[in-house]
């Protein structure tokens, strides 16, 4: 394999991994803190992409579209938390999984009735190619990677430097103890859901120019995103980053070796990791409830 192909493969993998990371981080936080599996985040990803499509058509700027997508993602997540999750926190994980799956496919129905079934293209906002070691690399993919790393940094700072973030970290360990200290955990839940929704919207918006936006796009990445969360360990931020890039590379480099492998290999890796270490790479076995 020549270096050019390899290098562009790596960049492709990193950019895909970045999208996976942005999606998975919210899911991972939601699971860690609330012990819910929030499949509806996949819907906010699609919403983010569609808002980006519509706004970029209306305003001529993809970036504004992405911003709109983030806002819509956050709002949708907020609404669902308020009206649905509030009623099901006490239930077990499978319950949230089924309920949010209902939201997901219901939302896909809404998307179909607003935007129709035809896949929509979103233009790439920067078509510049940057030369790295003799390989032309699309600048947009680099931007996606930078955004993901910046988000990781911001989340890290939020969780480690702000009191709300510290409360969220404490809550991932034991929600009841946090509540016992007089902290309104439901507000923490709401904040976490909004963060997750905004990041899902961001992921959808950033991904839109790289793919065709279609109603079932959320279902298409669902399996990959969950794989990222599971390989990384539910509730672990660092694990999510590592596994997102790992899965991105496997998808990308795998397809250079043998195309069908690209889709299958990550799942095989996930099975392997789960069977060897059922809590994922960085998952803590301490998590209770």
């Amino acid at each position, binding site marked *: 394999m020549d270096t050019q192909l390899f290098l562009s493969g790596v960049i492709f993998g990193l950019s895909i991994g970045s999208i996976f990371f942005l999606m998975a981080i919210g899911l991972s936080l939601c699971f860690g803190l609330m012990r819910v*599996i929030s499949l509806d985040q996949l819907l906010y990803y699609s919403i983010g992409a569609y808002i980006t499509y519509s706004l970029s058509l209306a305003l001529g700027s993809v970036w504004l579209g992405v911003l709109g997508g983030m806002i819509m993602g956050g709002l949708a997540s907020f609404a669902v938390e308020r009206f*649905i999750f509030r*009623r*099901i926190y006490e239930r*077990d*994980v*499978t*319950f949230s*999984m*089924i*309920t949010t*799956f*209902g*939201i*997901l*496919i*219901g*939302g*896909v*129905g*809404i998307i*179909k*009735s607003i935007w129709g079934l035809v896949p929509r293209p979103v233009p790439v906002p920067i078509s510049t190619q940057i030369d790295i070691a003799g390989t032309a690399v699309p600048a947009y993919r680099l931007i996606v990677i930078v955004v993901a790393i910046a988000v990781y940094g911001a989340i890290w700072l939020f969780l480690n430097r702000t009191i709300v973030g510290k409360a969220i970290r404490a809550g991932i360990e034991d929600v009841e103890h946090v509540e016992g200290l007089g902290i309104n955990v439901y507000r923490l839940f709401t904040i976490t859901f909004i963060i997750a929704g905004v990041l899902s919207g961001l992921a959808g918006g950033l991904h839109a120019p790289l793919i065709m936006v279609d109603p*079932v796009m959320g*279902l*298409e990445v*669902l*399996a990959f995103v*969950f*794989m990222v969360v*599971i390989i990384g360990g*539910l509730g672990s931020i660092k694990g999510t980053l590592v596994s997102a890039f790992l899965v991105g590379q496997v998808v990308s480099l795998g397809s250079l070796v043998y*195309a*069908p*492998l690209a*889709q*299958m290999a990550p*799942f*095989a890796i*996930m*099975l392997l990791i*789960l*069977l060897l270490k*059922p809590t994922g790479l960085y998952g803590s076995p301490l998590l209770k409830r």
Partner: protein
Amino acid sequence: MIGALKWWAGPLLAFALLAALRLLLPLAFVIEVLIFSIYTIGCSFLLGRVGFISFGQPAYLAVGAYGTGFYLFYFGTNPYLGLLIGLVSGFVFALAVGPLFVRLRSDYFALVNLALAVIIFYLMQKVLADVTKGDNGLWFLTNIGSTPGLDIARPEGFFVFSLLVGLAVWAFYKYVNDSVFGACCLASKLNEDKLKFLGYGNFGIRLMAFVLANTTSALAGSMYAIYLGFVSPEITSPARAADPVVVTILGGTGSLYGPIIGTLAYTGMKDAISKLVGNWELAIGFLLVFIMLAGEKGIWGTLEPRLQRALSRVKARVAR
């Protein structure tokens, strides 16, 4: 004799009603309902009795379908034998992956099963494309020979056959639910530790339930293969991974007749709504959320107590 009749009354009545449905609705619809019900009962059993939610049922459906498909495409013509081969391959497959899967916590179990469905999908679509013909699928409708007695190569014959298979499957699950094993499954869902104290291994019970449920799914896969006369990777498409779960919830988790009611509602809605507004996901999705928030009893779970009350009222009146 009376006891046996009473025991059989439920399944017989259910399938008599399904047979009667044939008078009102097209054959294809009723057969679809029959096969899909069989497909779903395994999922319903896993969720309701063992507490395992599986987003990977298409994997087992596909194993059955491809088992039958390979036989009919490459080797033989007897559909009954094909069905048996599909059933056995489903059993062997479930037995092979089961020991690894049933150790997992229920949330991981759901996702790992989903992963399995995706792997099978790509396996059939790409990796094994030489034998599976990839996306085109295997077409073997003309290979299926007619059989003496009940000719399941013809739709009418297949319809009768599906009714009989369904009746057998339901009688079997009714028996299982009433058995010690069924009670143990329920116990393993509710309280793992206490079950261990009673001397029943959790692992063994879950494995048996897993194999049982997934072999049933494989049986449904085989039936699809014979009825449609072809198999393609579409059968294990990840996009359809949640269908059996949705139907299970719609019908009422863990109840014996929930899967039939759920399938009727789901298939009917899919048909009716897609004719009316062209997107049935909206209705199904929000119905699902509604059912979950309203106490997750499902259609049958809500109807059953009412039916029983009505029944006892009728009985009282007859007695008078």
